[in-house]
């Protein structure tokens, strides 16, 4: 980044807008120039004159011509994004921060726990692991969402289920008559997983409350804190370790994270808020 203005975005065209659920849309972005990121790193998306917000690309880090973000409608910027039809120009800055520790996953049984829109960054990780499946023993992906309508990436789930090394388990808080999988919060899936904990590393991404209970459960199952990775969501503005908004203890989450090993952050204040 040296030499460039760290606040100046690269322009990107919105190529496609995909409805994922009533509250979630994906945006396929085509940057002016190739854009490289590592899975789990995040970018800032700027809407001209409106605002900027951080998102973790949900697309494969192995593709540099296009990238995709999956966005839940929650407020000012995300609402404006949801009004986009395709063809608009946005700004992107990044990539920022420390992503998932791929090298720590190689040779392991990877247990991935995702909740709600937390599937977005995890899809990028799954794409990455899928492309390197000979490097891992297996992947167990547990996904929880509010209700069947809010379960995103249905086609991708089907695709993963057809790969030998990948197992996908899903649950919803509120089921309807169409739902044939588990019912209950995401941690109910952990009672059912079949992993060799000594050979395993866990990755958790989702709403704070879901991460909190998942970590508790993982500890009960026997996962050491050093084998649990979390992606932390904090209020952010600059993304480059300067504005102070994302401080969590002595860490700047944007620069030192957003992915942390649980033992690195467990004693920091209010990590689940």
């Amino acid at each position, binding site marked *: 980044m040296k030499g460039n203005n760290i606040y100046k975005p690269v322009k990107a065209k919105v190529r496609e807008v995909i409805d994922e659920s009533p509250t979630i849309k994906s945006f396929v972005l085509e940057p002016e120039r190739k854009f490289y990121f590592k899975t789990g790193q995040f970018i800032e998306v700027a809407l001209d004159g409106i605002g900027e917000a951080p998102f973790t690309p949900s697309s494969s880090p192995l593709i540099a011509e296009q990238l995709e973000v999956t966005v839940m409608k929650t407020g000012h910027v995300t609402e404006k994004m949801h009004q986009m039809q395709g063809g608009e120009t946005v700004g992107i800055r990044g990539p920022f921060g420390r992503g998932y520790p791929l090298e720590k996953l190689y040779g392991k049984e990877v247990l991935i726990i995702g909740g709600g829109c937390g599937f977005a960054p995890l899809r990028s990780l799954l794409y990455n692991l899928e492309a390197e499946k000979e490097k891992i023993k297996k992947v167990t992906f547990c996904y929880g969402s509010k209700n069947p309508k809010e379960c995103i990436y249905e086609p991708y789930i089907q695709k993963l289920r057809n790969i030998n090394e990948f197992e996908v388990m899903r649950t919803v808080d509120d089921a309807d008559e169409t739902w044939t999988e588990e019912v209950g919060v995401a941690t109910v899936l952990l009672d059912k997983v079949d992993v060799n904990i000594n050979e395993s590393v866990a990755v958790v991404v989702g709403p704070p409350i879901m991460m909190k209970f998942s970590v508790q459960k993982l500890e009960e199952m026997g996962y050491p804190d050093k084998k649990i990775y979390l992606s932390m969501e904090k209020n952010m503005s600059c993304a480059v*370790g300067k504005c102070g908004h994302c401080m969590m203890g002595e860490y700047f989450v944007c620069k030192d994270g957003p992915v942390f090993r649980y033992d690195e952050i467990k004693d920091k204040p209010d990590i689940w808020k």
Partner: protein
Amino acid sequence: MDTYRSLSKQEWEKALTQLLNHYHIYAPLAWGENQDYERIDEDSVADIIYNRPKPASPLKTFFLPVKENVINTEKSDKKRIILGIPSCDLSGANILDEIYLDDVFVDPAYKKNRDESILIGSDCHTLQEHCHCTTYGIRPYPEENHDLTLSLVEDTIFMHINSDKGEQLVREIGNITQLSEPTENEIQEILDKRKAVEEELNRRNRDLPNYNATGDLINSSGDEIWKKYSETCVSCGACATICPTCTCFLLLERPGFEKVRHLDACQYPGFEKVAAGEDPLKELYKRFRNRYMCKYVWKPEKFESTACTGCGRCIEACIGNISKNELFMELYNK
């Protein structure tokens, strides 16, 4: 000793007036007991005050203005000379540099503002009520981050050269007027003044815990003390905005993918609120405590530089009449 130069105050003022052709000059002007940096012109050169701590606004306001476009960072027409900077503010620049000019991301606007400034430090010959720099290892005379140091003794200005920029400026002044080399006695007089002020500071603040001890006290305190001291806090943020080492800001978008930086503070509600509604600093006493944790516990863990210079501005600025030093003494004596 060869790095000292001197000239009469009258000649100095003449030189400054000439320098106005090439530089913007900022220096402390006083009203009553108070003083602040002002842009100097021919008429105000003679009103500059010397060696009196400390301008109401901290040095950081020159590097991090309240509001600034961070995309358009064009060079200014003239460099600026900032005069009369107390030692605490110069040392306070260390943490700003660590954050804004780090190894990975250099902040272009900050860098420009920093590079375009010639910093002239000032020995403190008197003290203000809340000065406690020595408690945190800073001496009341400039030791770092400055190009020149200035002392006015009787009617003579003494300049100590500390950098190439400083040497260059002294050369320019030398082209305008004759400079002398001070005698050993004169230099001794400057050093004696320094010593006297430092001793006075140590005496006044001898009961205050040092920087590390303060961090330990804060880190092991319960909620009660924060609830008690924050009773009169109104979340105005003055303590942070006036602080030479507070660095927080918010970026706002402007058309053309431009961004404007606004100084921000963790004392304002919503500073850490996320879209989902969670807010680690929702309760006022937690926001109040956050500033202390930031300065004495977290910043020391992450950075080399001290995050409090002991300038005392936060005490003077507080609408709620809250003194951090009273709080520390209460923690210390428990």
